[in-house]
């Protein structure tokens, strides 16, 4: 590990146990200042436990965690002033309006100079500023949560499952806000089980499974290293197609809907396959060529698919 000052977060052999359950198993990683770091993994993988240790909410069983050069077990008081946290399943006081909620948290941080209206604008909640929390939709609540995480102008922002349980539109709106943070140069620690989210926003992705980090790098590096081949899908094929593709030396997989998936090394292979099928008069209803993504990386590394768990489900007990 290089000099501490280069990193916002340094985690060294972190282990967290709950009785016999090992939630986090000796993981090490570091997060550079100004980068968006995503912790990607399914529910129960140890993401939230790890992030809560870094946030000073939980204490590690063993290992060392340093945040902005401070030991998280010893400098809680100093650390909380310099970080912003959107906890998993964020919630707030039902009867308090958006503006009052931001005002409340700004008082906790003694931020008398905070421009509350600017913060409300930043998360696109201007029209809902006088709405009570209980009347906000899931997406609006998460945006309020992000605004609260920013009241103290933090150096490091933790966003724990910020888009879990949101509909696609609300999710996109939350992503827009997060992209704004990235543009501001904030260090962002994101935990998610949505690979699109990690791929879209993160500079570095760490894939965690069963308490261990199994791969880490930029989304491009991870894909290049672990799932470099594009995937060609031919839908509703007739019986000839499978044989023709096999004869060409590819390994097609047929599913129950009579779609076949063919892993190709180069885009030229696609042209070769399609020409061969045309010459043989083989029929298919549609085709889809998809570049590999983190979902496939995760599938390859763990043998399991990343799926949505219950909204707000917590990894830690």
């Amino acid at each position, binding site marked *: 590990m290089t000099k501490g000052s280069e990193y916002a977060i340094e985690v060294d052999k972190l282990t967290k146990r709950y009785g016999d359950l090992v939630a986090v198993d000796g993981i090490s990683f570091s997060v550079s200042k100004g980068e968006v770091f995503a912790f990607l993994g399914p529910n129960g993988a140890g993401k939230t436990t790890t992030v*809560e240790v870094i*946030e*000073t*909410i*939980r*204490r590690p*069983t063993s290992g060392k965690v340093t945040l902005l050069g401070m030991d998280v077990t010893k400098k809680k*008081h100093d650390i*909380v*002033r310099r*970080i912003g*946290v959107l*906890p*998993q*399943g*964020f*919630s*707030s*006081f*039902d*009867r*308090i309006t958006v503006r*009052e909620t931001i005002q*409340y*948290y700004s*008082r*906790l*941080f*003694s931020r008398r100079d905070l421009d509350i209206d600017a913060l409300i604008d930043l998360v696109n909640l201007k029209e809902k500023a006088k709405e*009570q929390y209980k009347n906000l939709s899931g997406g609006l609540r998460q945006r309020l949560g992000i605004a*609260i995480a920013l009241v103290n102008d933090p150096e490091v922002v933790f966003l724990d499952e910020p888009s879990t349980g949101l509909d696609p539109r609300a999710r996109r709106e939350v992503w827009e806000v997060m992209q704004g943070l990235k543009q501001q140069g904030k260090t962002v620690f994101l935990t998610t089980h949505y690979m699109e989210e990690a791929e879209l926003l993160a500079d570095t992705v760490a894939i965690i499974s069963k308490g261990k980090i199994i791969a880490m790098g930029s989304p491009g590096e991870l894909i290049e290293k672990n799932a470099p081949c594009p995937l060609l899908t031919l839908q509703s094929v007739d019986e000839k197609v499978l044989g023709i593709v096999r004869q060409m030396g590819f390994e097609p997989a047929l599913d129950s809907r009579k779609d076949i998936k063919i892993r190709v090394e180069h885009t030229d292979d696609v042209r070769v396959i399609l020409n061969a099928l045309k010459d043989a008069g083989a029929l298919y209803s549609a085709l889809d060529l998809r570049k590999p993504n983190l979902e496939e990386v995760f599938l390859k590394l763990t043998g399991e698919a990343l799926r949505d768990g219950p909204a707000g489900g917590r990894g830690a007990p």
Partner: protein
Amino acid sequence: MKLRVVGANLFVKLISVYREKTTMFFTLAFPIILILVFGTIFMSEDNVSFHLCVQDLDRTKSSAKSIKTLEESGKFKITRVDPALNAARYVRDNKVNLVLVIPKGLERSLMRRMVFNNFSANVTLTYVYDPSSSSVLTKMEILNRVLAGINQEISRTPPFLRSVEKSVLTRKYRFIDFFIPGIIAMAVMTLSLFGTVDLNTELRQKGIIRKLSTTPITRTDWILSNMLYQFIIAVVSTIAMLLVSYAVFKVSLHINAWLPAFILLDVFAFVGIGMILTRFVKEAQSAAAAANAISFPMMFLSGSFFPIELMPGFLQTFARMLPLYYVNEGLRASMVFEDNLAALRDCAVIGCFAAVVFILGILATKWEEGR
């Protein structure tokens, strides 16, 4: 401790309860309803009037006069039962609990005693009653007292033993005056205990406590603001109870510095217990059940509703171990008897208890979620 942080917390709690109008209404209304119900019952106790069925088998001027005397006593509203009916059947069929039967021959026996000085002449009145009725014994006891008075009048001999009531208090107090301090103590207890348990478990379940633990707010700021909030609610509730008591029942109570002191200690004690409960009982429903398990015995055994002297000896001993007993006694000592020494003694006891449980409550309240 930062006053700005405490103020911000207090504002959020007060504005929340202000906007939750239904909750606020029932919070304030519950003890007032108790005061109105029990106050009405106890206020009319001195002028209690029972419904009494009388069957006059004699049907003479003397028997009619006896019935009139019963009516004029002010204790009974008389309903006449047809002499042709069976009294026992009348009790069963009409769901009344007592029929007084005046036998035939009352006037004749009365004449023999009054005119002929035949002191062996007498008449036996029959009480036909339903023993399953809870109030019938009281009714018969009052009837006996009224009949004893009538006997006294008929015999025309002045009583040898007389009695006179002399209160230890300089003013005449009614039961309602003793009742109100007990209800204030009980209401402040339930507000503080349930308020703390409900608030803490709700905020923990919603993850707000976890969020707050990543801000500079300290445990002391949080607890102090909760304490102040509960104290303000308790004061508002007490003022409402006193206003209703003065307006409806015209109570005679002394409002002095002991009242806020006892309210504060009541709040400290039960906020402390609430904090300890929420440390060990995680779910909101379980916490409410645990709070009920504490508040109900306290409510009924500590003398809030009725004097502990009515209870068996071992329960009286138990009652003296309950913190609410000392709040009840202290408030009555200061508000009714103006006994500062007794109030000081009770204040010292509840003060020590409040200090211990409040410190334990502070220790039990955790921001971090464990090692």
